[in-house]
């Protein structure tokens, strides 16, 4: 009965389908732009220029991408273990709390080589802890992780408001934010690094957290495909029953996967709090947690795919802002529509081009071996 659903070669699965998805999304978005009376080609030009056209734009795009890599990787890692972590938003938020607490406590006492790693560890630990509660509820009580992680996003949000308004607020301040960290607690900006090397670059929020993000991608790849624990994650994700029969402890996989996922999401706090704002503020994680789901879906849950998808989403964020600025007819909301269309076609409708591509492939290369399953 599965006669019509053929498996496609890997290069189509990984390479062609995402590109086709993006193309469809842009086509429809172009129609929307046309509908509101703007020129779609002009819009594309501004979008691309706004995202990649000049150093400052590239800086912003990469800065947004850094956040998406963390949350996208978080979703992807959990997904390999068969868990759908919707709580990236809250875990990122609480990860930022970890960073903020460490920096507020030690920014004047510890030297940066100790302080920064400690802040990173705190971000991961706080994110992991925030994910551990839903993980335990799933592993031992059977509460579904999708529901509990969503609820934990709200709890995180309320907790942060409470802490910033009542506890951590800087003395004498009118807005709910902490005092600024001392210089030792601030991650170096890339433009500052380049400047000290004699290279001029316009200032942008891009900071060294992007290297941390790329390092995490490499580690995640090694972990998933080259360690026994990653093997257990994937075994559990593909076929939990077979994993159990093979002696894999499913509860442990659930706990470990969610903690690692939460830790990765928590690292958004490093980029935002230690890297850009240099103080703990409200709502710095807004949208990245959910964006990570789309990033992971589009990146096919592979670290390299996550990087590429993050770049696209970073570009949409940055180029979209530029677009709203340049063409008055295109409002901020229209940009959200375009982003939504990309998420729709790359995420929810990701398999849309499968069947047409399969028939096309069959037409193009009759006579090449295919693994046609019998019975």
């Amino acid at each position, binding site marked *: 009965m599965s006669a019509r659903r053929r498996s496609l070669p890997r290069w189509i699965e990984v390479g062609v389908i995402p590109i086709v998805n993006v193309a469809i999304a842009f086509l429809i978005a172009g129609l929307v732009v046309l509908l509101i009376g703007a020129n779609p080609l002009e819009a594309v030009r501004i979008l691309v220029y706004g995202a990649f056209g000049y150093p400052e734009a590239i800086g912003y795009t990469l800065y947004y991408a850094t956040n998406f890599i963390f949350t996208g990787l978080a979703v992807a890692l959990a997904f390999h273990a068969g868990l759908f972590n919707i709580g990236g938003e809250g875990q990122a938020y609480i990860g930022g709390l970890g960073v903020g607490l460490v920096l507020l406590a030690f920014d004047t006492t510890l030297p940066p080589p100790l302080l920064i790693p400690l802040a990173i560890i705190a971000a991961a630990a706080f994110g992991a802890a925030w994910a551990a509660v839903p993980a335990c509820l799933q592993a031992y009580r059977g509460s579904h992780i999708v529901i509990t992680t969503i609820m934990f996003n709200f709890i995180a949000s309320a907790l942060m408001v409470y802490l910033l308004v009542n506890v951590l607020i800087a003395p004498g301040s009118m807005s709910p934010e902490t005092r600024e960290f001392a210089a030792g607690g601030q991650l170096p900006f890339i433009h500052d690094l380049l400047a000290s090397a004699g290279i001029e670059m316009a200032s942008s929020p891009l900071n060294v957290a992007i290297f941390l993000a790329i390092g995490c991608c490499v580690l995640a790849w090694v972990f998933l495909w*080259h360690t026994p624990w990653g093997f257990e994650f994937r*075994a559990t994700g593909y*076929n939990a029953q077979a994993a*159990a029969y093979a002696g894999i402890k499913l509860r442990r996989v659930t706990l470990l996967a969610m903690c690692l996922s939460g830790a990765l999401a928590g690292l958004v706090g490093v980029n935002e709090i230690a890297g850009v704002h240099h103080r703990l503020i409200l709502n710095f994680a807004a949208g990245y947690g959910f964006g990570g789901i789309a990033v992971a879906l589009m990146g096919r849950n592979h670290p390299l795919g996550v990087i590429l998808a993050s770049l696209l989403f970073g570009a949409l964020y940055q180029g979209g802002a530029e677009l709203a600025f340049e063409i008055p007819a295109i409002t901020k909301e229209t940009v959200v529509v375009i982003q939504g269309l990309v998420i729709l076609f790359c995420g929810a409708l990701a398999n849309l081009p499968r069947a047409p591509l399969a028939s096309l492939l069959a037409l193009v290369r009759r006579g*090449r*071996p*295919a693994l046609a399953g019998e019975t």
Partner: protein
Amino acid sequence: MPTEAAPGAAAAIELRSISKSFGAVRANRNVSLTVARGSITGIIGENGAGKSTLMSILYGLYEADSGEILIDGTPVAIRNPRDALRHGVGMVHQHFMLVDTFTVLENVVLGAESGPLLRQSVGPARSEIERLGREYALGVNPDALVSDLPVGEQQRVEIVKVLYRGARILILDEPSAVLTPQETDQLFGILRTLRASGVTVILISHKLREIMAVTDTVHVMRGGEVVARRKTSETSREELAELMVGRKVRLELDKAAPKPGGPALVAEGIGLRDARGVTVLDRIDLTLRAGEIVGIAGVSGNGQSELLDVLAGIRPPTTGRLVVGRREITAARPADPAEMRALGLAHVPEDRLRYALIGAFEANETSVLGYHKDAPFSGAILLDRNAISHHCVALMERFDVRPRRPALHSANFSGGNQQKLVLAREIAPAPRILLVGQPTRGVDIGAIELIHRQLVAIRDSGCAVLVVSAELDEVMSLADRILVMCGGRIVGELAGAEADERKLGRMMANIWTAPGADAAARAPS
């Protein structure tokens, strides 16, 4: 569409030079065959011989590259199952296409509603189901929930569904794969009734016994071609097996007398209650000795699967104890599958696709599943992908797993090759105890031979082997000692040499006449 057969009329189905390729794989090559109206025709062949492809073409799931299909002597174009049904061709799939939470009636009507309101369809459907039930001995309760029905009855619902849609030509794909022997016999009764009333039946199978029992003619396929056509009454299992495989096949298994050693696993008074509190295992006593094969026979669903689960550490027993080496396993001190593996127990679960392998894993990953943390496959932190790959190739050589491609996804191997890979994985670490559930379910004849020989070989090397199988033939040819299970208890024991089909059948038949624990109490224990 004529429904009544006139004597001397054209054949119900005639296929002329059907060819179908998937890339370079020529699944069907110039296949021509005719099926007489009102007959039961068998199509046999190993996995990959092209029989399912051929039937999928007839049912409109695939389109043939070339060739012609004639129904009742008229050329027809069948592009999808709807076309097929319009020409009276219906198919009963191996895996049922039923909605579990619907009633039988709702399932039958589903997709064949006669209007926007369900009420219009349901009334006539009910009387139609009743008529079909009367006419073809296909008694099903229209108001029963499908999920409450035993597998055999679900299959009857599938048949009713197809007949309700007006099919006069019925294709059954491996219909007995999921059935107990009794349900299979019932099914054959139904098929004979259908034949008597003019329905044409095509039976795809690789079970020779069933083909011999129920068909009128049989077509043998091999390598995409029909290599032979025989009247069933004029052929034999041996001849058909040879035609299928293309060489002489030994259906009998050579094995030396067992040399049982000390007990490797002892179960004392094992009991198990399921989540609803129903007793599924009741005071099981069992000893597996090194160097012998113990077979468990019985109607499926009488506790065999649960017994395997308990012995393998997947479920802890509710009562009783299990002794493996120095370790005593009880409800208070359960063991998990990983610990049982460490104790030298290997387990080939009954349902390999669900429990034994991971379809999306490469063969080399599947070949170490459960042993992935052991040296040399894993160091302190990293997996040694080279060592794993070498291991997989070695297993593939030893157990003749084809194709020999360790990077191929496990799901892309045929059932027999998957099973060989799983068995190879479990035998490779030289376990002291090997539990095997349904060693050859869905496996073709050539592979059965190899699997049986390997099981005897590991017995001879001093392993204690437990085989649970729904195939009586298999239990009899493999086991040195046969235990019969019923209602969660072991109700009888026979030495392998003493057992024959009649004797075992009678033991089981006695039990069937009065099912439940009462019958078990009367049996010797």
